[in-house]
């Protein structure tokens, strides 16, 4: 029994961390987040050159053919660096819906960006609630909170053709497609409303195949998101502890005061506990264990509360500085808050868990 990354996986994580320290320091994040789409094509291609864009995609489809633990280890580092832009939408959300090498190849090479349009006006993550209509090769309806839609070369859309679920591919220049930017709390990941009005669409999958693809994509995306959250909260802890050691009041580093020290200890507890939950979910998904779905909901529920609380404490320990735009903690705090609702909030995931452990369905 071994609950740690293997040496190869550790090396992968270490390399990713070094790469992002050089290529995506926080000054770069701030520069990119001020651009209209908060995306930098050069950074995206450099990350793809590392093999990350196809990390868990089989080699015969153009990827690296690694597993869920490697995927989590890489996204943890991206969350730590607060990587902005469409990498998450492309790699964690859209790519798992595809299996055609012709679609996946350009994604793995970093040459094409994509996203997935899933939830609608009522922001319900239950696929049964989605009602965008597919008919005769066109889509009509509206999707909400679609990440990075303005950068995507194509959008994968969950829709229904006379009740049958399907996944459809809409090119960015398709007629009848309207992409409207929303102003989101997270400055590093843009969200959009996407409308379809008799918009031509290519069918990717229908019926059971579409349901399977959605299930798989939602699981991979949830894992990647919780791994990002684990990385982000560890970074907030580091920034905060560093500040508590350096900042003096009453001629004493504030980290000597128990009121401050205990906030940092709680942040450590939440951060380490999140890692345990995330890597177990990665393991369960990798081995396709029956408890994989519950393990992901546990990780999501725990990470959502942990990241937000770590942000709360991180800002508090920084005092007035923590409330300024220049301090980096709020950038992570914003990401934490948006990640909390993305892919299902805690009420949604706790209800999924209740079905599993209370109703024993």
């Amino acid at each position, binding site marked *: 029994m071994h609950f740690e990354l293997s040496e190869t996986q550790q090396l992968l994580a270490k390399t990713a961390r070094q790469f992002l320290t050089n290529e995506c320091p926080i000054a770069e994040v701030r520069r990119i987040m001020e651009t209209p789409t908060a995306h930098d094509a050069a950074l995206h291609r450099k990350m793809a050159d590392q093999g990350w864009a196809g990390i868990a995609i089989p080699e015969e489809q153009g990827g690296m053919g690694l597993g869920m633990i490697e995927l989590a280890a890489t996204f943890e580092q991206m969350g730590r660096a607060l990587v902005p832009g469409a990498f998450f939408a492309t790699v964690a959300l859209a790519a798992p819906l595809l299996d055609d090498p012709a679609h996946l190849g350009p994604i793995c090479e970093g040459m094409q960006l994509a996203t997935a349009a899933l939830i609608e006006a009522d922001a319900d993550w239950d696929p049964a609630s989605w009602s965008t209509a597919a008919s005769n090769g066109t889509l009509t309806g509206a999707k909400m909170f679609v990440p990075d839609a303005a950068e995507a070369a194509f959008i994968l859309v969950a829709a229904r053709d006379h009740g049958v679920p399907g996944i459809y591919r809409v090119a960015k220049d398709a007629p009848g497609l309207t992409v409207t930017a929303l102003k989101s709390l997270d400055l590093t990941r843009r969200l959009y409303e996407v409308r379809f009005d008799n918009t031509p669409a290519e069918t990717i999958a229908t019926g059971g195949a579409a349901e399977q693809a959605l299930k798989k994509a939602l699981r991979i995306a949830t894992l990647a998101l919780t791994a990002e959250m684990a990385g982000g909260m560890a970074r907030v802890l580091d920034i905060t502890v560093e500040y508590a050691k350096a900042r003096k009041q009453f001629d*004493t580093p504030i980290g000597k005061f128990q009121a401050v020290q205990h906030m940092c200890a709680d942040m450590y507890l939440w951060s380490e506990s999140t890692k345990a939950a995330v890597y177990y979910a990665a393991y369960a998904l990798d081995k396709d264990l029956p408890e994989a779905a519950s393990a992901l909901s546990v990780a999501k529920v725990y990470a959502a509360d942990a990241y937000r609380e770590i942000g709360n404490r991180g800002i508090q320990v920084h005092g007035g500085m923590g409330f300024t735009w220049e301090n980096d903690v709020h950038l992570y705090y914003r990401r934490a808050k948006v990640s909390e609702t993305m892919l299902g909030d805690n009420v949604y995931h706790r209800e999924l868990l209740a079905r599993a452990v209370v109703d024993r369905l």
Partner: protein
Amino acid sequence: MDLTLSAEQIAFRDELRQWLAANAPAPITRGGNESLAQRFEKLRGWQRQLHDAGWAGVAWPKAYGGRGASLIEQVIFLEEMARAQAPPMANTLGLGLIGPTIIHFGTEEQKRRFLPKILSAEEIWCQGFSEPNAGSDVASIRSEARLDGDHFIVNGHKVWNSYGWVADWCALVVRTDPAAAKHKGLTYILVDMKSPGVEVRPIRQISGESEFAELYFKDVRVPVANVLGKVNQGWEVALGTLMHERATLGASITILYRRSFDRLVELTRAVRRNGRAVCEDPIVRQKLAQAYTELEVFRLNQMRAVSRVSSTGVPGPEGSILKIFWSEFNQRFQQTAQEILGPYGMLEEGSPHAIDDGAWSYGFLRTRGNTIEAGTSEIQRNIIGHFVLGLPKSY
């Protein structure tokens, strides 16, 4: 990452599981007309039975009566015991804390003298660390031992001694050099509780029970040969014990808590309120799912800690998160149970209509002790702050 067990570990687990299915007695619980002492004798008999079949001291060296297996097998043992709803072994502190400390610091003679009788439950152990003025600040111990030829003369007062009322031996920390700095002048010494001058008084807790005692030592003569480690180096030995305390508890806790959780779920299915089964109430469902989430995360933290200890060999200060986690979780969980059970949750042992013979009202009160015993939550957070995060020591 590989969370599967090896073929030998699976064989060990299956053999134990079969043995427990055939031999484990009915749960030995509170209630009925049995006293704490009567229940304890049942637990001692159960430990003897385990020992005779070779299951006591799974990870202890064979030379002293153990099984010589690894920490993973020890964890499997605790998990299987809990899964079979088998009663715990009687000599909790001897097995969990003092035995491992003797294995680590003891002389060959001490190991041969003490370890086999810990395993057979022939000698029950308690631990004398805390004093009225040395609680969290355990190094400010005042109980003293003065050298007199080949004996120490011990005088002092200890409190919060689990099993003090039944113990044959006590692992005692005393001051042997009053002139030395706080942590320097302490010695860890093994004291025969039948020695003249030892007095035991029970402490009555908020739950009404007396699991703990206070110990008084008046001119108690203890052979110098009973010092564990070196004279005036008792602090290092005691720290070793405290680390063990945090590292080994978790495995059985995980499964005991899971059983309480499952029982509470069962009750929510049976009890009706507002015209529906309580388990259909969305707020109750959210609370149960939250408890399950925390329970799972604790289980995973524990697994990760065991994996780390079995590769590094020593429990580290990060074990403090386990102590904070289980104790604070248990308090939140008991509160959730109270909210779900309503007025029935308040009924105590022996009352008409009490659910599970008052186990929930007892649990509610007993868990207040969880964040105090075995190192308060505040001390655990100090340990994380200083030893893990490198913040300046706050005191």
